[in-house]
């Protein structure tokens, strides 16, 4: 489904991605782990071209996605993204947040979009807050609305960029629950997270990034019990200290 070949990305003199290779199958849930600065968020942002890579190739669904040749707006519509800081539209209600892109990007009939948005809010357990503005929601509720908003475009792939890192600890569970549900339904997901419980339980594969490269990957059970590289062991030890 997704193939990343030898991806490089620099910001000024700082090289963040140094030849990343990664492939993700359809319906697969991949968790990206790594210390901060290892390049996992940048990789995620390159996958939907919020950052444009310097070198390498990205293939999605057998299509070579090229920054100046592919219609990136259309491509992004097929890839949902959930951000650490939610980035809900504060001047729109929860429902309007979900309806916005279907109506203005897909030109969906507003009545149809409204009922679909309602269904999606229902799915993430936010139906009762449909007419509430983001300001009035807790972090966990905001993130669930943000997930519904991304799902509204019926994406083939969902990218999660530390979706629970900005949440109070007691609100993490409700967001992970929604993500677990999505995984169960067969969504292709790439998740940057520090929630090891989620990685263990939900991920099909864990990918460990270090210093701009994929250092090690494997099934969660294997990865957590039997890390191969010293750097990985060190990282896991610091997480589970």
């Amino acid at each position: 489904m997704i193939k990343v070949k030898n991806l490089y990305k620099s910001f000024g003199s700082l090289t963040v991605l140094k030849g990343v290779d990664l492939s993700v199958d359809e319906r697969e849930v991949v968790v990206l782990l790594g210390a901060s600065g290892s390049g996992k968020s940048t990789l995620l942002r390159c996958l939907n071209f919020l950052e444009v890579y310097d070198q390498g190739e990205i293939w999605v669904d057998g299509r070579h996605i090229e920054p100046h040749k592919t219609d990136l707006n259309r491509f992004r519509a097929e890839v949902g993204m959930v951000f650490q800081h939610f980035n809900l539209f504060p001047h729109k209600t929860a429902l309007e947040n979900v309806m916005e892109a279907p109506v203005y990007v897909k030109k969906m009939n507003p009545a149809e979009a409204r009922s679909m948005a309602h269904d999606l809010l229902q799915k993430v357990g936010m139906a009762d807050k449909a007419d509430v503005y983001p300001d009035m929601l807790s972090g966990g509720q905001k993130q669930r609305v943000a997930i519904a908003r991304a799902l509204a475009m019926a994406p083939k792939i969902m990218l999660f960029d530390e979706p629970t890192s900005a949440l109070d600890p007691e609100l993490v569970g409700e967001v992970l629950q929604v993500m677990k549900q999505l995984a169960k339904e067969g969504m292709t997901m790439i998740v940057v997270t520090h929630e090891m419980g989620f990685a263990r339980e939900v991920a099909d594969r864990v990918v460990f990034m270090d210093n701009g490269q994929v250092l090690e990957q494997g099934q969660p059970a294997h990865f957590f019990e039997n890390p191969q590289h010293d750097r990985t062991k060190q990282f896991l030890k610091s997480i589970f200290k």
Partner: protein
Amino acid sequence: MIIDILLQNYPLFFKAAWLTLRLTAVALLLGCGFGLIFAFFRVSHLKALNYLAHAYITVIRGTPLIVQIAILYFGISNIVTLSNFWAGALALAVHNGAYIAEIFRGAIQSIDRGQMEASRSLGMSYALAMRRIILPQAFRRAIPPLGNQFIIGLKDSSLVAYVGMMDLWGTGLSVAASNYRQLETYIVVGLFYLAMIMLFTYFVHRLENRLHTGKKRKKHKESTALPLSE
């Protein structure tokens, strides 16, 4: 007395106030248009547009309004025939446009970049994201400084008196020149400006409040933090 100056001249003053109001309204409306265009130029990725907007703003902010009015008034009348009204309005619009451009630019840039990223990640084009997501938030944020600029614009419109317009200030000058009661006449003029600005301020506050309640903001609890002055 101030009252009898008002009584003797009120048709003149009201006519003048009406002219000041029309002039300011047209100038500020046009100024918002210029401001928006040049604000876009400033945040654009095209270097040429950046420079153009930067030059416009530098020149306008770096020269006195009265000089700009004179240059435009006498300059334009050499090329095309414009009525006094339109020459004055255009000069004020070009002037206010530069300040309004900076207000809009600041408001646009103050919107968290996550808003643009979220919009783009949903498949929106840059233009659509600007129109639907960034600008509505930026406009809201621009209202207080914009209201301030409108007040300044209304007061500055008095300078068109020096190219012969009979606005409030122009009328004040001419009335005072004929009745020799400068102090009282100018106080009357001042009161007219004051009344107009107080009325305008009232409406801006109402607009701000409406936008606030429209958003159903959380009411902030009364702060129990130590005042910083202590």
